Structures are given as structure tokens and as C-alpha cells.
């Protein structure tokens, strides 16, 4: 290694080491540990006893067997697909729609409007979930049922979350979508604010409507942000579970059709009764593989590599 390279290496190491350390500590080691635990008999948090209890592919075989024979497991996989798919669409397109809507109004009301959409994200998960628990409760104590009954729309309360599969799915998608949509809104708002105002003004002068400006100018210029939000939200939704956990725990939504693979992993590892961390780790590894494949496909389809090209200009 010549002197210049050595200096470059030292400088790079200095600047990158905190990040590398973080990645190793919080990503790499947990990943390796999860894979390792999936090959052990680990349960009930008993690290001392089971950490060296290597059982090979036993947990994966058990998982596969359950996938073949357990009706609940099939519901879990189906719920994962529907939940991630639909909530992703809501989060990405909803975020974009909100950002575009606030783009065309003056800053003050736009900020207040955006703040409103951030409220669910700012509320503690338990409080936020409790609000929807009482709102969608399947008896007359549920706000929605109570309103509809008072209006004479229904005569009997509707067990929203227990109507399978779409009742349960609708609630978990609605509750999570309401939280997730603000993320896309912020990213898209920021992106829209970066677009030179002259383009919009010129289009306005030429008589373009808000819709035409959005379609022809704004959306094409936020393509990379779109890609980022889509990938990020996909991976995030695949692993999200806290709201779902509470809604299922409180019996608001049907357990089979309110449980995604991420929640299944959590319940298997830390749920009631026997806590089977080995089996949960195997399911988590599969979840990670799905995440990696899904993320890769998204990036490939939307041609991520083009964004990574060096921009033209002086360097």
C-alpha cells in the first residue's frame, strides 16, 4: 500500500468507523445471532441452557410442517401478503397525495394540515391503539357501532374486527395506514419543496391545472423519493407488529386474520405459555429472506442503479 492509499484508508477508516461499528453492533451481530438461534433449541430466554443446544434444521422443519398442516399458519401468511400489499399502497400513494395536496395551498394551513397527519405517529402506541379499540369495538360500546345505531343505519352492532377475513384486515390496514402515511408525506413534501418554483410558475402561466402540474412535473421529479419511500415502507411493514399485537391481544380483531408473520415471530418468541425463541428465530430468518428478496426486486424494477450513477457535472 503506497503512502497516498494508506492516508486515504486512514481517513476513510476514521470517518466510517462509527457507522461501521453501528452496523456491526446493531445489524450484523443480531442477524448472525438470529440465524444461530434458529439452529438451537432456545426457549424461555434460557440462554445458559440452550445456547449450545444445536438442533440443526429442526426448527425449519417444524415450521415447514406447521405451514403444511396448521390452518392458522396459512391465515398468517395470507394476512401478511394482504396487509403489506394494501398498507404499502396507502402509505406510498396516500403520502404522495397529501404532499401534493398541501403543495398547492399556502404554507400556514398546509403546515397545520400536515401536523394533523403526524398526530398518530406522535401518540404513544398503546393510547393510539386504545382509541381505535373503542372506536371499532364489535358491541354497542364501540363508537362506530353506537353512531350507526343512533343514526338508524344498523339495528345490531357489527363485530367489525371479527368478520373474517376483510373486517379484520380492514382494521389493521386502517390503523397502520394512518400511522404510516405521514412518513411518505414528509419525504414527498421535502422533495416537492426542492423543485425549482419557476417550473411550476411557468406551467401555471401556460394554464396548466394542478393535476397537470402534478402529473407532468412534480411526480416525475420525485421518482427517487418514491422509490425510497416504497422500499423503506415495504421493509418496515414487513416487520411491523406493535399495533397489531395490541389489537389482537385485546380481542378487537380475529387472531388468525390479524396476525402477520412479524407478529407471529414476536408471539412465538415472547408470547404467553412456552416462549419458543428457536422456532421464532427460524421464522424471523425466513421473514428476513422475504425482506431481502422483496427489497431487491423493488430496487431492480424501479432501476435503483440509475439513481446511484454519478450525476453529471464537475467533480
Amino acid at each position: 500500500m503506497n503512502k497516498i492509499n494508506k492516508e486515504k484508508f486512514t481517513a476513510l477508516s476514521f470517518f466510517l468507523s462509527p457507522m461501521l461499528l453501528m452496523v456491526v453492533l446493531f445489524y450484523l451481530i443480531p442477524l448472525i445471532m438470529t440465524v444461530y438461534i434458529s439452529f438451537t433449541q432456545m426457549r424461555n430466554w434460557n440462554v445458559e441452557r440452550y445456547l449450545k443446544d444445536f438442533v440443526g434444521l429442526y426448527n425449519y422443519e417444524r415450521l415447514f410442517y406447521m405451514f403444511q398442516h396448521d390452518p392458522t399458519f396459512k391465515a398468517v401468511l395470507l394476512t401478511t401478503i394482504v396487509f403489506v400489499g394494501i398498507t404499502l399502497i396507502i402509505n406510498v400513494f396516500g403520502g404522495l397525495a397529501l404532499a401534493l395536496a398541501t403543495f398547492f395551498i399556502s404554507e400556514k394551513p398546509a403546515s397545520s394540515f400536515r401536523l394533523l397527519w403526524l398526530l398518530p405517529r406522535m401518540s404513544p402506541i398503546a393510547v393510539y391503539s386504545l382509541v381505535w379499540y373503542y372506536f371499532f369495538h364489535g358491541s354497542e360500546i364501540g363508537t362506530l357501532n353506537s353512531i350507526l345505531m343512533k343514526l338508524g343505519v344498523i339495528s345490531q352492532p357489527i363485530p367489525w374486527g371479527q368478520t373474517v377475513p376483510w373486517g379484520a384486515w380492514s382494521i389493521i390496514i386502517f390503523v397502520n395506514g394512518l400511522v404510516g402515511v405521514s412518513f411518505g408525506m414528509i419525504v414527498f413534501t421535502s422533495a416537492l419543496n426542492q423543485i425549482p418554483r419557476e417550473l411550476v410558475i411557468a406551467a401555471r402561466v401556460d394554464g396548466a391545472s394542478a393535476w397537470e402540474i402534478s402529473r407532468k412535473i412534480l411526480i416525475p421529479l420525485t421518482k427517487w423519493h418514491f422509490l425510497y419511500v416504497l422500499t423503506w415502507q415495504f421493509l418496515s411493514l414487513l416487520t411491523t407488529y406493535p399495533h397489531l399485537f395490541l389489537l389482537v391481544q385485546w380481542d378487537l380483531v380475529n387472531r388468525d386474520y390479524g396476525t402477520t408473520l412479524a407478529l407471529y415471530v414476536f408471539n412465538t418468541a415472547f408470547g404467553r405459555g412456552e416462549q419458543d425463541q428457536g422456532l421464532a428465530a427460524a421464522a424471523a430468518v425466513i421473514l428476513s429472506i422475504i425482506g431481502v428478496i422483496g427489497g431487491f426486486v423493488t430496487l431492480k424494477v424501479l432501476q435503483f442503479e440509475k439513481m446511484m450513477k454519478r450525476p453529471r457535472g464537475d467533480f
Partner: protein
Amino acid sequence: MKAKAVWLVAILLLGVIASGCIGGEKETGTQTAGKVQLTGDFTKDVVAIGKVLEQNGISEVKFSAWGSGDPNSVMRVYGIVEAARRINKIWADNGIKVKIVITDTHYVASFQDAYKEYLSKQPLGQAGDFFVNSYAFLPTLADEGYILDITDYANAYKSVIDDFYPSLIEASKYKGRLYGLPQDTEARPLYVRKDVAAKIGLDVNTLPEKVKSGEFTWSDVYYWAKKAKESGAAEWGLIHRKGSAHPDLIQFIFAFGGKLYDPNTGKLVVDVPAVYKWLYVEWKFAQDGLLPKDIMSWDWAKQIHPTIVEGKTLFDIGGTWYWTEWQTKQYYHGRGLKPEEVKEWFAYTLFPAGEKGDKPVTLSQPFIWMINSKAGAQNPKYDELKDVYHMLAFLMIIKASDPDINAIHSVISAHLPVRKEAAKLIKDEKWLNDLKNLNLDLDPTVKDNIKNIVQATVNPINAQFLADVSYMLEYTHLAPAHPKYPALADIFKEAVDKVLRGEMTPEDAVNYIIQKVNADPELKENVEIQGEIPKNWKFPQ
């Protein structure tokens, strides 16, 4: 070379001295701990332990107590606080300058959540030194080495152990070893609203006897529930728990003569005929509108209890602790019931037999004082004095089981006493009066924390209730203490929910249970499916 040799010798010498020091200290500790032998004389043992601690320079012993359950059962942790005070008094009286300090009384409503928290924190050494929870979790905790095997200590305290009801001591064992002491137990009566019963002509005075003799079965419960509903006397015929099927609903299996465990094989059992009959009863009640189809997702505080205390149902499957919970929680139009109201409005019987020829039942879920296998770890010289700390912890649960502490818990929480001496005490009017006025020798913290509950619950009516339901223990069953039982109970709950909602017929639900058991290789290995769905079985008969 010479210098090197000198250095080597010096290092060796240093190593020998260092290891000598470390080893020497350990040996002294072991010897000191070894001096204490439990004799069964409580004061003598406490004094001996106090002296060892004092000799080792320990002036304060820290312990924490974790408990869970209904709001009135706080003695599950304050019993430990009181035990500490009583031991401290013995030490003070004997001039021993050591004190037990309870650092944390962690009490939560859900016993399942408390168990989860204990599981995750025990390996980190952050779980409570004392843990009061259902015996159902004891096998797993014992199996994982998370709780202390107290068999050898208990041998010295045979006289105390013998005062506990034997079945409860059995519930505190796993593979023949004792892992805790019973803290309380209960029965699960069938409550009957007297006012609703009067409207439809159901004689509640003779009912307990009829149930006892097996004359009044679940077919009769159905008949009267239907009558109550159809006559407009009540909105519902029957109300029962939500959530887990364990333990209230599991009673149906025993009521239909079924079983849950095979002692010969050590496996859990899905007794198909009994489970089918149970699910059929649930299905029939729900289909005929006598039991809410969505009861498994009802809200405890806003729906289940208010429906019962406001007289909107004829029957309710509940627990003895409901009796005082209704008095201390605001379930009745925003207030608690008065003892006189509970007595006036509710009759109670055993859980009736499933059908003629079967026997009535009840089910108990004893709570157990368990000691963390790392108890005392937050104290100095833990490694050397581990045995001493463990012995002290054992003596604390012996003290926390004092008849008066156990009796206080029973009266204020409507759980049944676990010791014969405590059972005698709750019948003593003078003692009850002293408790009512808190004129008892108790720690001020304990008094403060139970003051309101005592005000609301201590009276002859509640004591009489406990005395009246005590006979139910003769009919009691325990769900199996098996590590896989919670998983099976969870599947039963799913099946009950599905038949209640009409998503499955009872037959489909039985097949669902079998399918779920067989889908998990580990569960399949631990569960036997016995018998077949009975043909031409009818309900009501």
C-alpha cells in the same frame, strides 16, 4: 537470564498468594454458610441466619416481591413486606443488627403478563426474588431452573407444611420436588341472580343441593336460561369469561366426565367426547341467543361485570373473588356493590354436572409463593452467602404463610385459605372485627395499602361466603401442570370462540382442535387424542 528467573518466581508467588486469598475467602464463606442448618424452630433459625449475616458485615438484605392478580389480592406482595417486618423484629429483639428491606413490590393485574416479564428478566437477574403466580407456570419455571427447589428446607418445617391442604402442596411440586408454598386458592361457582330466578320460579335455596347430587345438570341450566330470556326476565341466560378458556371454561371437560391429563403416560389429553359436549353446550347457548356470540371479545370492566351486577343475566360462571371485586370496583352504575346487595342478589352453586350420571365440579388454580433461584443476588457477598440468602428467602415465605396473613388475604380478596389454621381464623368474629378496624400488628405500609380494600370487604357477610363455598374444594380439579398445557388451552379458546360465533359447528371445532394439535410436532408428541365424537348425543336432554 537471572532477571527473567527472578521475575518468573515473583509472578508465580504473586499468583499463589492471589489464588490463596480468593480461595480462602470462598472457603470461609462456605464454612460460614454451612454453619446454618434449618431446625424447624423459626426464631432460632432466623437468629442463626441473622448472626451469620452480621458476622459477614451485612447490615441490610435487599429483596423484591412480584405478584399479580385481581385488584384485591395485593397481599400477594404485601405478605412478603409483612414477613420481612416480622423477621426484622425477631432480629431486633435478639440484638442482631441486620434488616431486610423490600426494595420493590411489583404488582400487575395480568398474571400471564407477570409470568412473561419474569421469564425475560430472570436470566438477567432482574426478576423479583419472590414471585407469586399460578401453579400452572411452575413446571416450566422449575424445568428451566428459574425457581428454587425448597424440598430440603421444607423437610425441617414439616409441621407448617402439614397444615397446608395436601392437594395444594401437590400443586406446588414438580417431578416430586417442592418448588414453592401455596399462597391461595379458589373455587369457580356458578352464580345465580336471585331476582331473575324469582321471576321465573327457579328455587335457588334448594339449588346447591340439587347440583351437588347431580340432579341439576347443564341441561337444566339451559332450560332455565331459556326461560329467563324468553320471559324477558333477563337479557341473557348465561355470561362467562372472555379470553383464555383456562381455567373457567375448562371446567366443562371435567363436568362431562372427561380428563385433561394421563398420569400413566405423562401426556396431555384431548378427551374428544367431553370436549365435543362442552363445545356443543357453548354453541347451543350462543345459537339460541342465551349467551352472547361475541363474549370472548367483551370488555371485562365495561361489559362482562356490569351485565352480571346489573342483573341482565340469570347465570354467570365466575370465581369466588368476584364476590369482593364487585364490592370494590365500580361495575354497578358507576359504584361498587354493598356486601348486603351481593348477598341479596346472588346465589352460588358448584359448576353443575354435564349430564345425569356425571358429577358437579369446580376448578382451582392455586397461586404459589415461588423463590427466584437467584434470590438475594443483589446483596453483598452473594457468591459466598448464597445458601444463607436462599434459606432466609425460604423462611420469609414460611412467615408470609402465617395464618393471619393468609386469612387477611382470603377475607379481602375472597380467595380460599390454603392453611387449616387460616380457615379457623376467618370464622373468628373477634379477629374479623380487629381486621375491620385494622387493629392488628401489621406493617404501616401494609395497613396503608389494604386500608380501602379492608373498609369495603371485611364484614361477616363476606366471611360467611368464604365459609359457605369452602365445601367446593372437595369437588375441585386442577388443570394439569404440564409445560405444554398453556398452548393446548389456547387452542381450546380458539375453538370456543369459533363455535360461539357460529363460524364452526361443534364437530368442526373438535376437528380443528385435533388438526391444530397435530400441526405442531412438539404438541403432537405431548398430547393424546382419546375417544370419538359421540353419535346421537343430544343437548338439552
